[in-house]
């Protein structure tokens, strides 16, 4: 159908539309009109991607000078491929409707094996790739730095974007890294020696270029051609490379000294935590390395590797890592912390020193993106509470909205189970998680559900270790045997290949009618990347609240930083983080309005307002006061009732006019009034 979104002609490649899709496009258009950033939460399975693509492509066609490019970032390879497929569908629709040959160029980069050719990216109207191509400075510099300013950037499935930012800026150095660095340095030295004998002119040329400084890069950035790079700070661009590391030999010598220093730092027997300035002070006192040459380290190494015409850059990844660390630690006095641990907490007898250089501020990595591109849209099915993202990513959005799912029948059924039939409270909290009664009640819940839910059930645990313990305990108590009478059991393992196989078998068992249970882990690969649509997931059970492991020093440092810099209390952040993962897990089961699924939160803590309030609105509004602290029996009764209702035929006529609209229905005043209430501005 062809839609009129506030005066913009939008081709939408379907015969019907969900009201929330219309509402979503409306908000999106307002964001683009304002040339600002937006945060939009839209329930999973309501056709978010196609709405996004339809609107932005239409916008590009209507105002080719205002928006020149769409950069669509998603998280996993299958998601990227899905976007491409939807885009293809949209383009086919354009061709069919207008009769014109499609002149839109879209480009998808997924996985390094088909890494793109750089110039093409500049001409494409749409680029679809993974987050890292934009957020990871090492890759962004290669792939994305010349993307036009007038681009719209979309981060889909962005609920974890802060972690991606942090990951891309954090560095871990072990003894092994340093040993391999040593080899790198030796290779560099030999190569330099050889070139000096055969082609000394090359090195002299490089020296001349370095004296000139990085002016070229600076010119480019000032004239706004490039996306800035957090590893290439502005100061570096304005100055020439310091003399102490200008010649190749001097630089290699410098690296050697730096390496020796790091090795010495790893020879410790107790945990050390320090800030960047402290580290710089120490390195100056011990080995007289100044801040300035450190800051140029990454750029200097790049230049050297280029000059030496080294083909296989991958071999030099350890030394590149160290050079990045050097530049980052000397550039940012805030937002990072250094933690050196002599051994793993679990095994205090085995020396395995690690230097963690952790980024605590996700805004550092994403800052260039917000600054450069005129519109950045952050969207996902679970972004609640909406206001936390602008705070931790440090940007000011023009639109922030959360959309509900209009439903002709309530196809999701969130239930909070707080007690077993013996009235013992169920919770995964630390004090009771080993409690026999809790584990047994969890087992009974799964057993009872396995008897009444058709096809597939997915259960998530708070961590892998916890799941292992519970599974062993259920095995001893004979609960698993009883579950097996109803369904086959598959379990996620730390091995991705093994888990993939288990997943496929799980789907097979759902497909052929046997029914199966998948035991899985929140924050794991399954919970982040696999959808359990229709019969692959008729119920999701979340055992416990998936808090992150709070004993880690890195996390503690980050929490402190959040408190000091953003005034976000530790507990608020931890709860937010736990709830977004819980919402991700349960949201996996619903895709679309013809789908249905139970969402069972098995922990009494979910009933509290501070937890419940952090669930996405589209889940929250279906939690009634009566389903806050259920026993297993009550849960089974409610589930049976729900499943029986859902099993009734559901036809298009049931939906039309309510949760599914024709073009005429969409145009009525009354409907437009209703639609305006779907989006809730934060």
């Amino acid at each position: 159908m062809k839609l009129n979104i506030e005066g913009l002609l939008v081709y939408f490649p379907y015969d019907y539309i969900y009201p929330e899709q219309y509402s979503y496009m409306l908000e999106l258009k307002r964001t683009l009109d304002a040339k600002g950033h937006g945060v939009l939460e839209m329930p999973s399975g309501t056709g978010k991607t196609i709405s996004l693509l339809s609107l932005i492509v239409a916008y590009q066609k209507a105002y080719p000078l205002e928006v020149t490019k769409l950069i669509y970032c998603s998280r996993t390879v299958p998601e990227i491929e899905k976007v491409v497929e939807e885009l293809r569908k949209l383009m086919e629709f354009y061709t069919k409707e207008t009769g014109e040959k499609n002149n839109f160029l879209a480009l998808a980069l997924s996985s390094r094996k088909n890494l793109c050719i750089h110039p093409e990216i500049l001409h494409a109207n749409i680029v679809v790739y993974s987050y890292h191509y934009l957020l990871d400075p090492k890759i962004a510099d290669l792939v994305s730095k010349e993307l036009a300013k007038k681009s719209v950037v979309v981060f889909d499935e962005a609920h974890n974007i802060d972690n991606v930012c942090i990951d891309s800026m954090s560095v871990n150095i072990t003894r092994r890294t340093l040993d391999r660095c040593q080899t790198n340095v030796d290779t560099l030295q030999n190569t330099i020696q050889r070139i000096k004998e055969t082609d000394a002119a090359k090195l002299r040329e490089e020296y001349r270029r370095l004296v000139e400084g990085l002016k070229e890069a600076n010119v480019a950035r000032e004239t706004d051609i490039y996306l800035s790079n957090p590893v290439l700070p502005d100061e570096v661009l304005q100055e020439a490379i310091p003399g102490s590391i200008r010649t190749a030999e001097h630089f290699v010598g410098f690296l050697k000294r730096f390496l020796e220093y790091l090795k010495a730092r790893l020879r410790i027997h107790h945990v050390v935590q320090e800030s960047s300035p402290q580290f710089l002070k120490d390195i100056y006192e011990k080995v007289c390395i100044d801040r300035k040459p450190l800051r140029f380290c990454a750029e200097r190494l790049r230049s050297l590797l280029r000059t030496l015409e080294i083909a296989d850059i991958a071999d030099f990844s350890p030394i590149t890592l160290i050079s990045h660390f050097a530049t980052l630690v000397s550039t940012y006095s805030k937002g990072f912390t250094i933690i050196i641990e002599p051994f793993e907490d679990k095994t205090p007898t085995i020396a395995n020193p690690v230097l963690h250089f952790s980024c605590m501020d996700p805004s550092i990595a994403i800052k260039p993106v917000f600054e450069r591109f005129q519109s950045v849209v952050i969207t996902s099915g679970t972004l609640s509470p909406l206001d936390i993202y602008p705070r931790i990513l440090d940007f000011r959005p023009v639109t922030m909205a959360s959309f509900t799912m209009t439903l002709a029948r309530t196809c999701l059924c969130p239930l909070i189970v707080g007690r077993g039939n013996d009235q013992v409270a169920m919770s995964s909290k630390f004090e009771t998680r080993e409690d026999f009664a809790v584990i047994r009640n969890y087992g009974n819940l799964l057993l009872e559900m396995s008897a009444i839910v058709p096809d597939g059930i997915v259960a998530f645990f708070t961590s892998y270790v916890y799941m292992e313990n519970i599974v062993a305990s259920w095995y001893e108590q004979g609960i698993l045997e009883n579950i097996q009478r109803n369904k086959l059991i598959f379990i996620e393992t730390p091995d991705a290949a093994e888990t993939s196989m288990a997943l496929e078998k799980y789907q097979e068992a759902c497909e052929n009618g046997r029914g199966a249970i998948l035991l899985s882990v929140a924050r794991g690969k399954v919970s982040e990347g696999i959808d359990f649509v229709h019969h692959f997931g008729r119920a999701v059970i979340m055992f416990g609240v998936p808090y992150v492991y709070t004993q880690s020093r890195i996390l503690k440092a980050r929490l402190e930083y959040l408190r000091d810099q953003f005034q976000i209390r530790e507990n608020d952040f931890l709860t937010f983080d736990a709830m977004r993962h819980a919402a991700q897990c349960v949201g996996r089961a619903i895709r679309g309005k013809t789908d249905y699924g139970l969402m069972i939160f098995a922990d009494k803590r979910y009933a509290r307002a501070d937890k419940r309030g952090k669930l996405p609105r589209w889940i929250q509004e279906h939690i009634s006061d009566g389903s806050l602290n259920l026993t297993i029996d009550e849960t089974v009764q409610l589930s049976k009732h729900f499943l029986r209702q859902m099993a009734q035929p559901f036809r298009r006529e049931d939906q039309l006019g309510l949760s599914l609209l024709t073009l005429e229905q969409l145009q009525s005043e009354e409907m437009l009034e209703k639609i305006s209430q779907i989006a809730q501005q934060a």
Partner: protein
Amino acid sequence: MAALSEEVLLVVKRVRQRKQDGTLYLMTERIAWGPEGKDRFTVSHLYADIRCQKISPDGKSKIQLQLVLHTGESTTFHFANESTALKDRDAAKDLLQQLLPKFKKKANKQLEEKNKMLQEDPVLFQLYKDLVVSQVISAEEFWASRLKLSSVEHSLSNNSKQEVGISAAFLADIRPQTDGCNGLKYNLTSDIIESIFKTYPAVKQKYAENVPHNLTEKEFWTRFFQSHYFHRDRINTGQQDIFSECAKQDEKGLKSMVVQGVKNPMVDLLSLEDKTLDEGYGSLTVGPNSSKTVKENSNSAIIKRFNHHSAMVLAAGLRKVDAPSDQASETSSTDGNSRDSDFFQPPIKKVKLQEAIEYEDLQNGSGPKTIALNLKKSDRYSHGPVPLQSHHYSTSQDIINSVNCIQEEISCYKPCLTRVMPSSAASSAITALSPGGLLMQAGTQQAVSQLVPTDVQSELKHLYTAAGELLRHFWSCFPVNTPFLEEKVVKMRSNLERFQSTKLRPFQEKIQREYLSTNVRLLLLVNL
């Protein structure tokens, strides 16, 4: 009666049957019993007719063996030789145990099928009762045309009988019981053994290798239950164990399954991430878990075992179906490859992607492909669970209110006399509506069904179908061009005559007796 050629495998004396002493003979194809002193068998069952054998529990004073036949009848033998009764019984039992499965496969498939058809189709069953049981036609004649028909129908609806899958909990069903003196007893049935073999081919292989050359069956299973293999969570104690090889094979099988990878790219976790973070970057690098405790190791062994077990159970259920589906996917892949635009995308992937982005309710056109419901017992289906409806309950206050309301209305009701019908018109309308009246002529025809009690109706219906069936047989003989058909025509004619005399006449008379006054039309129908 005993055929000379039959080889007698076992003779057990002093076996009582119906309180009579006698001798039990186990032969190659049947089991027979003859009373003492007589030279003939009063009991003789082909092995193929035996469904199963049952034995009395160990503690019982009477040592018995019961044979249950496919027909549902059973025969019980009581071993009465005091000193060797138990040994005799076990010898007979063991032999039977070996013999019965051989014949089970041969068991009359047709008989089973006939039985099934009769059970599934009440109409056919009635027809069978009317025609065969009352000896109007012989059973062979009845089935002659039926079976062909049904086998065609069957092969159309489902190629073969559906394989029964394996319960995932079959191992759990083997509950060990303590025998009171520090030992455990497991009860194995042939079903469980079959399940074990189907799920774990390695065990079957071991069984074939070792039983009965090295071990007796009992020893084999004892070792199985003692083995590390069965209790996978136990860490191997290092004892020599014939099943350790099975475990290794399983491990290998699991590995090869993992190495093969998955067909569906959407669940392939290995290629899920566009992995761009190099080694050393990232905030949460989990080091290699080299240091696992014994407990953790055993826990992960349990998890592995469950995954493997479920996969094997699933595979055992699918083994037969696998072959054709593989072929299908292969052919489709060659088709898919010819598309030039996305030739680099494997077709399965393409399909899965299409599936993943599809919103069925946003699109016009045919809904999802559904499979037509094939109902054997439609009444059971229609009397199944009724959709839940929110009932509207009225409160007592509502009722009182409405009663008041009606009272009020009645109290102020005034007949509007000008609009009343004249009495002549009213009486003519009543005549027209009375039985025999102008408007009721259609009604009398329906009345047959109301006037005649239901049992007569159903009897009539049965007779009608039976007659139809006979006539079908009769007419199917035409044109009569072979002597066989000629013979059949004659036979069918006599059948028809017999049917008329044994069934129709009595019914006709009965009707005449009871309903002479009511209706002649019925008779017409019957005489038809």
